[in-house]
């Protein structure tokens, strides 16, 4: 189905998430790159050797969650915007999620905006914690949101009402 719709299956998504124990320890990347394409900026972006593609540039990137510091440098380097960072270490009820977001207007810190799933459907309201857009991100800003824990595996996008 994925190849017909662009929507990954639950199984595919779960296969990309680090364990919940790892997520609860602190920020970690989720690399949702499911298909072989000739592309490797994520590997070069990671100073910790946590994303490995290897010899063949067509390989699917592999995340080594134990090496990942959740620094999020890879997020603005992935041309497919396929990477996010999740952090379950802050609060019981919620998780923090960092997403790349290349649209205007950017949300403001503290603002409540819509959280969307992988089909672009509204699932829940989320709170914006941080918006980063330094020059080194090259016009791919990162938005950190606080989300109800139960949507950890569902949330993948945000919508800012104009």
């Amino acid at each position, binding site marked *: 189905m*994925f*190849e*017909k*719709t*662009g*929507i*990954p299956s639950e199984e595919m998504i779960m296969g990309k998430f680090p364990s919940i124990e790892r997520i609860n320890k602190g920020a970690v990347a989720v690399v*949702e*790159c*499911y*298909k*072989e*394409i*000739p*592309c*490797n*900026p994520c590997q*070069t*972006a990671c100073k910790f050797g946590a994303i490995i593609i290897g010899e*063949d*540039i*067509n390989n699917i990137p592999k995340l080594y969650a134990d090496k990942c510091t959740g620094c999020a440098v890879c997020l603005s*380097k*992935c*041309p*497919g*915007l*396929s990477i996010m960072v999740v952090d379950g270490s802050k609060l019981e009820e919620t998780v923090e999620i960092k997403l790349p977001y*290349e*649209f*205007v207007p950017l949300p403001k810190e503290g603002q409540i905006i819509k959280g*969307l*799933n*992988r*089909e*672009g*459907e509204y699932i829940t309201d989320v709170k914006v914690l941080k918006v980063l857009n330094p020059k080194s991100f*090259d*016009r*791919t800003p990162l938005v950190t949101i606080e989300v109800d824990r139960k949507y950890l595996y569902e949330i*993948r*996008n945000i919508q800012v009402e104009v």
Partner: protein
Amino acid sequence: MKQAELVIIGGGPAGLCAAVSAARSGAKVLIIERNKDLGGQLLKQTHMFFGSEKQYASLRGIDIPAILISELEKYKERVEIIKEATVVGVFEDGVITVLEKEENYFKIAPKALVLATGAYEKYLSFPNNDLPGIYGAGAVQTLMNVHGVKPGNKVLMVGAGNIGLIVSYQLMQAGVKVEAILDAAPKIGGYLVHASKVRRMGVPILTSHTVKEAIGKEELEKAVISQVDEKFSPIEGSEKTLDVDVMCISVGLTPLNELLAMRGCKMKYIPQLGGLVPLRNENYETSVENLFVAGDATGVEEASAAMVEGFLAGLCAAEKIGYRLDNFEEMKNDYLKQLEELRSGPAGKHILSGIEQIVL
């Protein structure tokens, strides 16, 4: 008649890299580009490029020409650039004819040529496909990303290859609503990361669908789409009507290389490469001596491959006319290896099955 050592036709990524490579070897280079600016397709690509960082992946396409041009400046005493000039003929005696700014027509006799003219868009036939509001993806990108003009408000994207997916994303960034992306193929042709990116913005991707007709008096008002079966025939009764004022046709590119055919290069029709392409050897020299090719004109691929092909063709063309770098072999092998790496995956296999049929 103007004399020249090496003329490069087309100043896109392939042509610019060919120029850098040839000038670095010591050859005098003349680039002829029909547009006002160098950069070719790159000038419209506001998204981050996929590929290898060796070919500037992760940078935005629009930012790559400046890098190549500054590379070229290093050799500026050997580089001449004529813009807004179109090469209109390549003749048997090696002479080429150029029309500059639609008024100045002149001839050049170069020792060698690299043709890097890129590709042009295919079109789709359906009733009323000439209504205003129905554009090729290139035109939509030019309006939006070069001139800052919104092409309309509600778009139907026809074609779910990389271009269709990426232009849909750019339309949304410009505040335009994309109603749907459709494709007659049963599967999405473009990279799935790009598909997921537009899907999670809420845009449905309708595979096994086609456009039946466009409706409108003065301009596009509605599009009738329908499902297709395995044989790509529309399924009766599956029609749906969408209210859209823009239809963007993005059904692939075909190499732009009539100049080669005109000169008598041996050509072959290779579907995997997008259409008619010249036969060429490992150095990207065609069946006509001292006539080289590079980039989408040799087969539609990516800017990454186009740049490496440009470097390779420029290096070899310079060598052919007497400018051989000390580390020629090493450079050549490095470029060949880069191309091999780029084409080693599933998408590359398809391309390679086409290339096998054209290497002399």
